[in-house]
């Protein structure tokens, strides 16, 4: 009796409630986005909203199973799970089903299929946590840093081969984990700098950019003229920046695929083609913008209902929220995500075990990245990168992946007083 009670005793119900709220918001908005008059019932299993209901139910079952499992289990099995996911990622390249240009799916029969890249997220988080929580492992050590980076990079390489750029980029968010564990803040700054430079290079003539950099570097060197080391750092940084400016063009035209560069061009306003490549974002903005403050009401969105917005139940589900629930709806959803992120960070920080804390930051990073990219994409803040909105977008793999991600943390948290 005492034993059974302990399974759910320490569970962070606050997070569970947030989880369920997001799932239900998703379910209702999927219902509205792909509403079929012949099948009006939200639990009609011949429709995708009926299926989403099944996924949520099975997600809850999955969560229960995780909570019933032994905490030590996750740390112990992390390498095995990681290896299995890597095998699946290789397998998908061989026998995968190609959907929408990405060879990302393994057919399971019965119309269901599995997307291994979704599961790679929690597997990588687990493995990273397992490695970094090891004794005498400090991420500030060069060797440890590279091993940690390799753990992150390995699935990335396999996923980019599918090629699924969106899912690949998700792993970049794990830099927050490394930052929390002690790598130099320069990594964050440099990452930010690289992105900024990349965008600026596409927007501004390279020679103007170099000229500006010369001025900045000159000013810095003058400012630090007493400090030899800083002068060297600034000089090296300057050379790297200039090198990067000139390599962007090469990268852009030879490494990135054309369908990616046109999306970036459209995003930056270098090209404008609202009927072609910009159609999705344009219609998505129209959907969200036309929602005004209170929205058009449930099942009354014209943009999504009359299929102006593509991928309306998956990647562009946020349009339905924006259109039918207005700014009130979008604000609420983003606030719920922010609360969830804060709660996860709070949970992570209260762990005694490094494994649990590192894993917790992994969860927060992945969820944050998904929300930022997905919502940013629907309102034209970031280029179109097809990744789902956590717990809201339609799809079993995505929902289960986030369920596992979150509930492993909750299980670890429920046992935070014990040793791992």
């Amino acid at each position: 009796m005492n034993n059974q009670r302990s399974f759910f005793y320490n569970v962070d119900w606050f997070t569970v409630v947030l989880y369920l709220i997001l799932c239900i918001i998703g379910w209702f908005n999927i219902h509205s986005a792909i509403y079929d008059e012949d099948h009006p019932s939200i639990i009609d299993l011949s429709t995708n909203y009926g299926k989403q209901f099944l996924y949520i139910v099975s997600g809850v079952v999955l969560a229960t199973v995780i909570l019933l499992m032994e905490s030590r289990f996750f740390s112990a099995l992390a390498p095995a799970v990681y290896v299995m996911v890597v095998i699946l990622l290789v397998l998908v390249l061989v026998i995968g089903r190609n959907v929408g240009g990405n060879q990302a799916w393994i057919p399971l029969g019965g119309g269901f299929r599995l997307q291994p890249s979704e599961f790679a997220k929690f597997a990588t988080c687990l493995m990273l946590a397992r490695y970094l929580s090891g004794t005498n492992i400090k991420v500030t050590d060069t060797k440890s840093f590279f091993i940690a980076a390799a753990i992150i990079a390995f699935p990335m390489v396999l996923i980019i081969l599918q090629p699924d750029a969106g899912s690949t980029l998700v792993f970049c968010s794990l830099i927050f984990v490394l930052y929390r564990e002690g790598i130099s803040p320069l990594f964050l700054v440099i990452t930010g700098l690289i992105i900024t430079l990349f965008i600026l290079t596409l927007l501004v003539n390279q020679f103007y950019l170099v000229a500006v950099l010369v001025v900045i570097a000159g000013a810095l060197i003058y400012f630090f003229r007493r400090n030899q080391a800083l002068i060297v750092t600034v000089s090296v940084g300057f050379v790297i920046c200039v090198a990067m400016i000139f390599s962007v063009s090469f990268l852009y035209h030879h490494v990135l695929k054309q369908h990616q560069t046109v999306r970036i061009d459209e995003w930056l306003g270098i090209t404008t083609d609202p009927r072609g490549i910009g159609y999705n974002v344009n219609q998505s903005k129209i959907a969200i913008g036309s929602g005004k403050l209170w929205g058009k009401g449930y099942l009354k969105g014209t943009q999504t209902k009359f299929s102006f917005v593509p991928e309306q139940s998956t990647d562009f589900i946020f349009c339905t929220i924006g259109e039918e629930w207005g700014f009130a709806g979008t604000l609420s959803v983003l606030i719920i995500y922010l609360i969830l992120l804060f709660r996860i960070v709070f949970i992570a920080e209260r762990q005694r075990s490094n494994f649990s804390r590192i894993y917790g930051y992994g969860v927060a990073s992945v969820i944050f990245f998904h929300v930022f990219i997905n919502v940013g994409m629907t309102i034209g803040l970031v280029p179109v990168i097809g990744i789902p909105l956590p717990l809201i977008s339609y799809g079993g793999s995505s929902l289960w992946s986030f369920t596992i991600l979150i509930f492993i943390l909750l299980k670890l948290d429920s046992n935070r007083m014990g040793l791992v």
Partner: protein
Amino acid sequence: MNSFFERRYVILGIFIVIILMLIGRLFYIQIVDDKYLAFAQNNVIRRFIKYPDRGAILDRHGKILVQNEHVYDILVIPKQVHEFDTLEFCRLLQIDKKGFDQRLQKAKIYSNFRPSIFEKQLSARLYNSFQEHLFEFPGFFVQPRSVRTYPDSVAAQFLGYISEVNDKIIEKSNGYYHPGDYIGFSGAEKAYESVLRGQRGVENLLVDSRNVPKGKYLNGRYDTAAVAGERLISSLDLRIQKLGEKLMQNKVGSIVAIEPSTGEILAFVSSPTYDPNELVGRERGNNISAMYKNPYNPLFIRPIQAYYPPGSSFKPLAALIALQEGIITPQTTFFCAGGYQAGSHWVGCTHHHGVTNLSYGIEGSCNTYFCNVFNKVISQPGYPNITASYLNWKNKVNKFGFGIKLDVDLPNEKRGFVPAPAWYNNRYGKNHWRANTIISLAIGQGELLATPLQMANIECTIANRGFYYRPHLIKSIGDKDVIKPEFKEKINVGIDSNYYEPVINGMQAVVERGTAAASRIPGIVMCGKTGTAQNPHGENHSVFVAFAPRDNPKIAIAVVVENAGQGASWAAPIASFIIEKYLKDTISRRPSGINPKKYMEANLLPPLPGSKPKPSYKYLPKDSLKKNQADSNKRNIKSDSGKKTIPKLALNIVNSKRKEDE
């Protein structure tokens, strides 16, 4: 162990900043910027126009002249087409496999998802057999449409036709008409467009991204229903209209009959005519271009557009003016020795009439008498110069609606031609002309040009003893039988009513024992006047004007048969048949032995240009075949016709007017 504990604030800070950025952007596009709402509405709301049925036009007894017939367009949505029995389909539609493939391909090129017309205007019969099988042909559906239909195929020029709007009309209409709309293009269809067309309805539909309608916007709150066009009751009498068209077949000319007591036009025949049904349906394009090429020009509305010198039919009017001026009395006589000496020119007369008074002058159509009368009118004292005295005469002629527009309710009416004094001043020098210079006006020749409608209207005025109502073709509009106020206004021509009887005596004598005696109708007192309009290019035009009965007249008529010779030989018998048919609904055996059959069968079409050498001067084409009769005013007084400036000018008027109207 938590050595980098404080770094969580950096991470949380980044989360907050990024999420706030998203919220800020959402606030901007959802609350601040209004354009997205407009875009969203443009995306989904489509205005569909519902077309009302065009109004029907009936004759004065309620018989249908034009109404709507429902035809059926077959539409196809290529995306929805699945396999089916194409052979059966082709058999039902009476098309071949190749035509089927071409049509489907065309539809696919237009759009795979939106309906496009597969086959136009199926008749009801073809549609019925097709409709039973419609369910076997997925992707095809039927849309009813209404087209004009003319059960009796008459009165083509009066009814006019409808046609697709062109860019100019669309631009002028301030957005009322859209490409593909139809509009009345001529005749009553044009004149009464605004009442016939009805009121269009609007339906706001929601469409999806493929433009497929998905339902009504706001349950049709902003929709309006289409209101059918008004029906028009025309004044035409179908019986005499049909008889008139039959009598005029294979002839060039016009018949206009008017009810004097109302101004309602009873018959409006323009010959050669065409079957108005030819301008509807699949063969329309071919038929209309054939009509444009037809040298007899069936689209020309002769009753209101063709010009003829009225000839002797003008004499009663000339007499009335002289009586009113006090120049003559009914008892005044002139001696006719077979002609009139106008200065150095001789105007011949058909007979030596001897001592001639007014009635006898009309009965015998005595040129001598009327030349004398005209000379006295123009030369009468009290006017400073010829300009003033001629202007007085001209104004009196204009009062009868001759030389001015009668404002009949059809577009493109011509005004006829009565020269202004300036015209003669210009030609002969200021006041360097006299009555004898323009003496041919006395007998309805010279520069005078009238439309058949004007000739008939003059008879109305005589029949009414002094006034007329604006001739019109539409009696009443709509279910409430609205009559336009301008058609109820009595127009006085300024001749005292007691002057009419002596003139009418003469006109009665014309039919009793004069030039038109052969056309006398047993039991009906008809008053008329023959005319023979001189035509230097061929046979003269046969003209006859009349009204009947003498007391309480019911019908006034003008008949012109081009190139038919004497007024008495063709125009008068044709007029008599129509009058008798109208008054008695039957045509009796005539003492003279004439019967309608002979007139219906006669072919008086002038030889086509090209069948003999063309005249060297280009601007003088043949008669109304080429849209004007201006040349007919070259008359028998050769020495008077000067240097051919008359026809040229008259022709210019005709041509320039026509261009404006087109």
